[in-house]
Every structure is written in structure tokens, then in C-alpha cells.
């Protein structure tokens, strides 16, 4: 309990009897005694998850019994619908309106029929997330060779990241996003390792941004949390793309457009479309109807470009952001929340928005801060929650809806990750051996075994009591040739403190609880990863020009075991 509440309690007492002020010392002693005596309630996350399931079962029973289960009927001509449903639904309506509008300007042939011949009917599109329970172990083994494809991709991408990381990056090029992306990948790539075999000759950029000078670092993880429990079983979730939106739209496009007769095509489905706003600070919306998601980006031609026409460093410097231009995190979150509300995006299945401040790692570590690039765009992440459990990636970064905030103009500049999905849930046996889980936590997760020679620096990291969460997993399905998204139970260890380090921006360490993944890691295999061999990159010369994407200097590729 903080002092403010204790003061408030005392104030309340004095309001009743001001004479008691003279006994304040004794009163404080009694309050403290009460506070110290506050019992540990032993609240168990596993219990909360289990009860949540029971609540959902009860909901289902009640809906069945009382026949309350309703499909949401979307009258495509009901404009009120746009206020009530999600952005995707709104987008579908907009799309139809565009088509209707467009057709009025197309030459009509005799054979042309109304493309909205069914428009007077209402269409059903269920926008609510459903979780269907399937048999235990229904998604197979997650350490099978099939999974290797995904891991191989990850690994390849990881290797590429490392290549980027080990080369100096030009400041200014690509704007804030590029800086943040590089900064983030540096942090995550190196942070997951035990001592990492990376070293780069000092460069001018390295002096400016300490984060871009990889070096050998040992990360020592120490568990400082309390005792915890792990459930014997847990649900693995598979993301199921809702069907319907693309088909519903394509069914409407059933006429002769004059230039082509859509009636001749069968079983059609709309796959994607874009909408742009023609206004100042307008946006472009990209709808991916195959995956039922939508992304919003700046319509660059409608946004001011402060460094437009700049040809020299002095000009670029004028528009460069300063650290005092960066608003407080609460203000950034408020802008993101407002955008979420303004555009009717449903975030009920997501956690509270959290600012991604990884760029500050580099800023804080830089010796000459005047030359450090300050981003003009900062992202706020609303972590996805499935049945109350937050989803993070392998490196402990929360994943979900990401809202970019342009802090120069204090406006939302992009939203990614908005989508409609259902899930299948399948029960799997989990590893309950706490010591084994702690072993992985103390090595920073499943990734381990990096080179240990030449260590120049040690970073000590403390882990707190873990909570039960989920980590995202991508798996290649050999049968249908498609990638599938899964969410696997994991213990998420919060990082409670760490010694100073420019590279390390992780907030937590996640350890998956599927035995097969742990066995695989113990066997020295993190999922069929290829083993990148040390190699030299081609040397390209040239100065790091702002906006050029960076100069390339000789840099060793990572040595990843």
C-alpha cells in the first residue's frame, strides 16, 4: 500500500476525531501491522484459466437453452452497421458502395445484369471470435520435421537480421521505422543468446548509436521469483481464418461489367482490395480478405514531408526530431486509444496498449546524443489475448494489434494486425518439471549454445515469478502447403531488472511448455534450424547517406550453433 492511501486513512480518522492526531505514531503502527498481516491469497493463474473455460461452457449452455445464440445479420444497406461492427465489416460495405458507384459510370450492355442482384437480401457474416474445442493433441507434434520449414524460415530471417545488425546502418535512411526495426532486431537477436560471436570494427555510426556495434556479450539470467505452479495440461490454439467476407463480396460481383463478364467465373472469392483517402493526413487501407485482416498506412502523398527537397545535412537536421519532442508514453497511448475508438476497432480481445520504446535503448547508450536519430513514429502494441492469456513471440515481445503514432503530428499513422479469426483449442500434456523450465528461462529461452569465447561484457538479468501465457508459433502444413498459426502454452518470466546494456530491450523470457519442444532443444536442435556457417560478406563502399539505407562495411556473419 502506498503512503497516499495510508495518509488518506489517517485523514479519515482525524475527520472523525481530530484529537487522535497526537496518537499518530501509534496509529501508523497499527496500520502497518494490518498491512503486514495482509495474507498472500495464493491466487493461481491456472485456476483463473480453468474457471474461465467453465464460464464459457456455461455461456454456451445458456445460449443453447434459451436460444439466445444469434448470428449477426448484416444488412449491407444499413449504414448504422458501420457504427456497430468492426472495421473489416465496414470495409466490406465501403467496397460494395465503390462497386455500385463505379458501375454507374460503366457502359451497360444488353446482357449486363445488376452486380448487386442479391443486394436486397441480408447476408450473414459472423464477426464474433469463436473457440472450438477439438480432440487432445489434434494438431500433431510440434517438433516434427514439418515444423522445420517454419523454423528454417525463422532462422533464415534471423540470419539476415544478423547480417544487417553486423553492418553499420546509416542514420536517417528510411526514417524512424527503419531505425526502430533495426534497433528492435538487434535487441532481440542478441538478447536471446548466451555469449554471441559477433564483433564489428568501430565505425562512425557505432559511435553515434551504440546499439549498432555488436560485441561479445554474456547474458546471465538469475531467477528471483517465487514458487510457481505449472498445469499438467494446457490448450494449444490454432488460428482459423473465418470464411465468408471474400465470398460474400465476390457473390455480389456477379454481373457483366461491360469490360468483362464476371458471370463466366465460378466459385469466386474476393482476395484483397485497397482504399485510399483523398484528404490531408489521409490513409490507405489494405484489406486482405484471404486472411481477413486489414492494415492502415499513411497515404504519403497526403501527409506533410518535412524533409522534402532536402539535399544537404543541414536541411535534414532542421526536420530531425529532438528528444524533447517525444511525448510521454501516456500521451502516445492516448492517441492510439483515440484512433482505435474513432475507427471502431474492437480491441475487447486484446490487452492494454503498451508503448514500444526499444529505440530508447540506443538513445540512452549513445555517448553523443545530439546525433542520435529520434524516431517520429512510435508504436503501441495491444497484445492479443486468447481465453485471458496474453500472446507473445519467441523473444517475449507481445504480439497483437500495433498502432503507429506519428509523434511529430500527434496522429495515428498506421494500424496493423486487425483481423477476424476463430480458434480451435486442443489439450496437450505440458512439462510440469519446474527445474527444467527454469533451466531454459536461465538461458533466455529455447535458444542457447552460442559461442562463448572472447566474451568482453557480462549483463546480469533478473527474472520474476512467471505467469501462464501463450507464444505464437508458425507451422508449415505439408498436406495443404500452407502456413498455420498456433499459440502454445508458455511460462512468461518478466525481466525485473538488468544491468546496463544498450542491446537488451526484452521485457520477458518465454519458455514453451510442450515437452517435445523442450526435448528438441535439449537435443541441441531448436526445430530443424539450419546452422549458418561463418562467412564473409561482400564489401561495398560508400558513405552512409541519409535516406540511402546505409553503408555496408565488412562484417562477420553470426556464428550460430
Amino acid at each position: 500500500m502506498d503512503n497516499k492511501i495510508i495518509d488518506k486513512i489517517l485523514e479519515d480518522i482525524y475527520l472523525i476525531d481530530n484529537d487522535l492526531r497526537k496518537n499518530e505514531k501509534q496509529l501508523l503502527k497499527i496500520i502497518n501491522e494490518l498491512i503486514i498481516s495482509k495474507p498472500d491469497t495464493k491466487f493461481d493463474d491456472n485456476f483463473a484459466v480453468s474457471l474461465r473455460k467453465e464460464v464459457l461452457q456455461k455461456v454456451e449452455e445458456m445460449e443453447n437453452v434459451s436460444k439466445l445464440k444469434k448470428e449477426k445479420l448484416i444488412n449491407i444497406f444499413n449504414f448504422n452497421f458501420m457504427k456497430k461492427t468492426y472495421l473489416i465489416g465496414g470495409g466490406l460495405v465501403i467496397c460494395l458502395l465503390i462497386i455500385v458507384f463505379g458501375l454507374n459510370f460503366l457502359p451497360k450492355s444488353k446482357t449486363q445484369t445488376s452486380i448487386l442482384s442479391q443486394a436486397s437480401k441480408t447476408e450473414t457474416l459472423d464477426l464474433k471470435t469463436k473457440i472450438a474445442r477439438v480432440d487432445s493433441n489434434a494438431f500433431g507434434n510440434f517438433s516434427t520435421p514439418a515444423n522445420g520449414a517454419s523454423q528454417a524460415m525463422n532462422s533464415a530471417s534471423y540470419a539476415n537480421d544478423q547480417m544487417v545488425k553486423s553492418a553499420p546502418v546509416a542514420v536517417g535512411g528510411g526514417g524512424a521505422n527503419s531505425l526502430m526495426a533495426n534497433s528492435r532486431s538487434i535487441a532481440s537477436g542478441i538478447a536471446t543468446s548466451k555469449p554471441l560471436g559477433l564483433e564489428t570494427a568501430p565505425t562512425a555510426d557505432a559511435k553515434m548509436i551504440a546499439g549498432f556495434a555488436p560485441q561479445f556479450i554474456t547474458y546471465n539470467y538469475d531467477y528471483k521469483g517465487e514458487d510457481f505452479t505449472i498445469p499438467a495440461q494446457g490448450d494449444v490454439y490454432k488460428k482459423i481464418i473465418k470464411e465468408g467476407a471474400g465470398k460474400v463480396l465476390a457473390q455480389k460481383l456477379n454481373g457483366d461489367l461491360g469490360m468483362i463478364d464476371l458471370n463466366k467465373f465460378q466459385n469466386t472469392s474476393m482476395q484483397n482490395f485497397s482504399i485510399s483517402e483523398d484528404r490531408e493526413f489521409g490513409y490507405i487501407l489494405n484489406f486482405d480478405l484471404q486472411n481477413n485482416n486489414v492494415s492502415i498506412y499513411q497515404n504519403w502523398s497526403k501527409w506533410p514531408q518535412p524533409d522534402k527537397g532536402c539535399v544537404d545535412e543541414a536541411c535534414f537536421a532542421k526536420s530531425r526530431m529532438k528528444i524533447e519532442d517525444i511525448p510521454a508514453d501516456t500521451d502516445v497511448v492516448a492517441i492510439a486509444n483515440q484512433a482505435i475508438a474513432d475507427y471502431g476497432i474492437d480491441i475487447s480481445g486484446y490487452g492494454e496498449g503498451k508503448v514500444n520504446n526499444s529505440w530508447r535503448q540506443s538513445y540512452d547508450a549513445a555517448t553523443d546524443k545530439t546525433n542520435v536519430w529520434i524516431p517520429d513514429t512510435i508504436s503501441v502494441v495491444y497484445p492479443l489475448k486468447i481465453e485471458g492469456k496474453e500472446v507473445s513471440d519467441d523473444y517475449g515481445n507481445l504480439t497483437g494489434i500495433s498502432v503507429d503514432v506519428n509523434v511529430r503530428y500527434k496522429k495515428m499513422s498506421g494500424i496493423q494486425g486487425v483481423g477476424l479469426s476463430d480458434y480451435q483449442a486442443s489439450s496437450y500434456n505440458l512439462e510440469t518439471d519446474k527445474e527444467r523450465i527454469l533451466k531454459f528461462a536461465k538461458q533466455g529461452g529455447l535458444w542457447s549454445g552460442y559461442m562463448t569465447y572472447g566474451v568482453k561484457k557480462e549483463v546480469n538479468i533478473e527474472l520474476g515469478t512467471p505467469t501462464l501465457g501463450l507464444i505464437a508459433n508458425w507451422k508449415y502444413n505439408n498436406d495443404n502447403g500452407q502456413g498455420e498459426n498456433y499459440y502454445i502454452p508458455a511460462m512468461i518470466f518478466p525481466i525485473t531488472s538488468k544491468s546496463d546494456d544498450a542491446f537488451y530491450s526484452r521485457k520477458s523470457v518465454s519458455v514453451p511448455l510442450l515437452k517435445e519442444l523442450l526435448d528438441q532443444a535439449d537435443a541441441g536442435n531448436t526445430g530443424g534450424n539450419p546452422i549458418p556457417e561463418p562467412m564473409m560478406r561482400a564489401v561495398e563502399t560508400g558513405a552512409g547517406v541519409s535516406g540511402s539505407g546505409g553503408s555496408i562495411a565488412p562484417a562477420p556473419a553470426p556464428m550460430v550453433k
Partner: protein
Amino acid sequence: MEYNEIEIIKKCQAGNLDDFTLLYDAYVKKIYNFIYYRTQHKETAEDLTSRAFMKALEKISSFENEKGSFSSWLYRIARNSVIDYYRTKKHDADISDIWDLASEENIERDLDTKEKLKKVDEYLKNLKSEQREIIIMRVWQELSYKEIAEIIGKSEASCKMTYARALAKLKQEMPLSVLFLFILTRL
């Protein structure tokens, strides 16, 4: 996450009961703690928390926002679950939480909690159950007096008057610790 609680409740009342999970996520820990402080037994607290949420789900259509906040409505359900539990267990209408039981009563209680509460046990025991509840809600759960008043179903004004009168009478008779606790329970 800040949800518009009223909107969620309206959705639930309109039949979208899936949205009840949002309320569940927001309150499960608070309600569990509330119950634990009255039972001091993990398994019992979990059982009663489960009962409280199932009851709330069943009765959500009868919740009226005009009559008070959802949180106090939910806390009242939890409070009644605890009272029902002890009544069933002891067939005694006066038993409303663990402190009403004699120390030798054969009711399960977590040992570490029992040990931790030794110091405050005696004077909390000497208070009326309602007074004790107020202290727990105020000091351990950090609820405001307004919230507490809603949960226990008393108006702030009537409580203030009652306590002011009682205080004048008892001030001379009580040791400071008990007097303090007594004052703390005024609303």
C-alpha cells in the same frame, strides 16, 4: 484495459454472453482475493469464486445499473456466497466469515495465513463482522468508502450518523487499537 463496462453489460443482457468473459477477466482476481480474506483457504476461495461468477452470469440480465455499480453488485454476490457457505457449514446464521468461528472449529484454513494473521487476529475478532469487512476492504483491498458502502448495502449518511454516536460513547472505554479500527469502519 479500460472497457466500457456498461456497454459490455448491455451486450450480455442482449444475449451476447460471450462478452461476460471480459467482465470475468477484469474481476476474477479481485473477487477471489475478497473471498480469500474471508475464508483463508485457497480451495474454498476458488470454489466460492466459481460459484459467484456462475451466479453473476445467470443473473446478469437482472442487473440494473441505476441501482449501483456492477462491481458492487458482483462483490455482493461474492459476499453472499461466503455467508451461504458458512451457514451451510455451521447452520448458524451469525457466521459470516472465518473470524466468527472459534479457533478450535474444524474448518480448513491455510496454515501460513493463520500464522500471519496471529497478531491482528484478536482485535479483528472482537469487531462485528461488518466492521471487520470494512477494514479488510479498506486496508487490504484498497476500496473506497463509497464502494464499500455499495457492497454492504448501506448509505454513507446513515453509517456516518451511527458511528458518530457510537464513537462518542465508546471513546472512553476502548483501547486505542480497537478504537482506531472502529473509527476506520465509519463510512
